[in-house]
């Protein structure tokens, strides 16, 4: 695992950009672009990242960047990959699609599923801030149960989709779940993904101070708590083998997950959430976590048995 001081110091994310103070995207984007050493073309639909990228004629991120329509991210990345191959430039850069949770799990899932089935050659990073934050915090398919949004005023009733599992069902060569506030975990996964051909999907949990309603200074703390409660798991699936990584792997060893209530009570979006709803989320997390542990141990058993 790469240490913080071993990360490349070159920065393509420029100061003075338009993102909110404490936005988790900047932390994650810095790690992603460091892993690609700036040799990338970024495909971006309408999203908070577009805001970070800035308005014409100035860009806040010094990489080739192609803005695309909201539902089209994965198809746009497929077209870039095809175009670069057709013009003999495929080796010059990695195609990186980066979309939010709404752009991925809702309006973009059809194009993403098509690209995954074709195993098109690009990395897709979903930065998951758990609602349509750019348009004013409307619920998405990845908004967690209990969260108040501007379209779920009393708290969302449903659990979010498990997009990494949907992507895994496509049989893609690499998929990972990570968190923007674990930059070295992000970095290592993108470095690995870079060396693999085909569609590589990385789901990056990304705390949002304004939408989740917490003090911007707590972006990293809250993101870490999401992992420490098991609500977000750091893992990767490479050629079908599941492996917990980093903090999630150590949690698997220690068994000391924190209660989700600790995480929920730090955020305004869960204000007034009933105890039974918190208990339901805890049960949901416990069940998912047990699944992660079972798969993690099964893969570990296979690799030691082999």
């Amino acid at each position, binding site marked *: 695992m790469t240490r913080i001081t071993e990360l490349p110091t070159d920065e393509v994310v420029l100061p003075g950009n338009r993102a909110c103070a404490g936005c988790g995207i900047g932390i994650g984007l810095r790690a992603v672009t460091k892993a690609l050493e700036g040799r990338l073309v970024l495909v971006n639909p309408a999203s908070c990242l577009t805001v970070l990228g800035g308005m014409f004629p100035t860009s806040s991120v010094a990489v080739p960047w192609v803005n695309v329509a909201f539902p089209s991210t994965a198809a746009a990345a497929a077209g*870039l990959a095809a175009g670069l*191959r057709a*013009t003999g430039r495929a080796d*010059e*850069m990695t195609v990186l699609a980066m979309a939010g949770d709404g752009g991925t799990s809702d309006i973009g899932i059809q*194009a993403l599923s098509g690209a995954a089935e074709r195993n098109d050659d690009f990395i897709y990073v979903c930065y998951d801030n758990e609602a349509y934050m750019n348009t004013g915090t409307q619920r998405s398919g990845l908004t967690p149960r209990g969260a108040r949004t501007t379209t779920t005023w009393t708290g969302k009733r449903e659990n979010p989709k498990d997009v990494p599992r949907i992507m895994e069902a496509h049989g893609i060569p690499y998929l990972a779940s990570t968190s923007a506030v674990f930059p070295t975990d992000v970095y290592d996964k993108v470095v690995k993904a870079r060396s693999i051909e085909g569609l590589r999907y990385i789901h990056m949990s990304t705390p949002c101070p304004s939408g989740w309603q917490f003090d911007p200074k707590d972006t990293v703390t809250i993101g870490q708590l999401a992992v420490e409660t098991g609500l977000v798991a750091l893992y990767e699936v490479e050629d079908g083998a599941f492996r917990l990584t980093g903090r999630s792997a150590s949690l698997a060893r220690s068994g000391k997950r924190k209660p989700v209530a600790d995480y929920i009570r730090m955020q305004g979006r869960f204000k007034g959430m009933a105890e039974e709803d918190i208990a339901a989320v805890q049960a949901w997390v416990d069940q998912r976590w047990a699944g992660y542990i079972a798969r993690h141990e099964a893969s570990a058993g296979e690799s030691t048995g082999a």
Partner: protein
Amino acid sequence: MSHAKTRVMTGNEAAAHAARLARVQVVAAYPITPQSPVVETLSEWVESGELPAEFVTVESEHSALTVCITASTVGARTFTATSANGLAYMTEQVWWAAGARLPIVMGIANRAMAAPWSVLNDQQDSMSVRDAGWVQLYCRNNQEILDTLVQAYRIAESLYVPVMVCYDGFLLSHTMMPVELPDPDTVDAFLPPYHPLTVVDPDDPRNIGPVTLADPRPDAEGVARNGYMEFRALHHRALLGALETIERVDAEYGAATGRTWGGLLWEHRLDDADVVLIAAGSLGTQLTVAADELRDEGMNVGVLGIRSYRPFPAVAARDALDGRSLALVFDKALSYGHEGPICSDIRSALQSRTGAPVVYGAICGLGGRDVSPADLADATRRAVADRAAGIVDREPDWINLHLEEDAR
């Protein structure tokens, strides 16, 4: 030395041949009747190695045009084709491709819009996206489909605007006709490589198509750069420039292959015509048969065919219609609650002109409703009688309409 070969083929095959002759580099394919044989044919050539292109079998029309958009952004020559609801589904990207100034060429096998379902021909699909900023060219026969598609790349890549080449579903898409295939060297000489405006280079990073403000905004050096409205004005200027480019490209293609298609407009027995029949696509060919029949009866009838619907050749149409008595416009599409789209454009081209003809509209062929030259001749006789009766404003004549309630 030209080594052109003539083969009998459908309009869809002619479209596929054109894409191959243009050496397209990325093809996006999604099936829809009656377009599907275009991409099926291209797929066969890509798999056999005859066409060295990337073939992306997307999961929707929205993605088909998306693939063309981004592949074109990195400098690849792209092609796709669609019809009806497929075009409607990709409408968001139709606007995107044009606004991004990408020289994509797309074949449209014209088909009626649902609901209710119809797989048969009219021109409602492409006419519904006339305002999106693409060049739209309409074809009369399979040879024109092939030639126009090759020309389309020249037009698109010199002006940085996308081009739709529209041809009637089934009537042309599935009808066999002899088509002369130009020699590939002739096409290569006619069609230079594509050089994109977009820059995709990690050593010179640019952000393409970002949020753009209403007003010009200074860059980091303090130089005011265009606002949204300025970009739209430049786009409009490029489309107006296409009026000249379409004519010139058709002429240059004629010099290379011996075939021209009239540039913006084509005409049939128009010289001394008092009554001018107007349409786009294969309906125009039907009109020439009707006109010949009426000429035999002693009526001075001619045909003005619309090849370029966008940009609309308003000045050329005005000149062609100056001094005539009647212009009868046949539309295979309708702006519901108003009239046929070509009819409106002809009216606006002629407005406030002294000596301009009276303009009548006719609606025909919706959802594949058969319309024969005899029907068109009848409609013309009705119109001539109305004109003689001094009628200036007339509701569109619906040809071959048999409403159930009218029969009761």
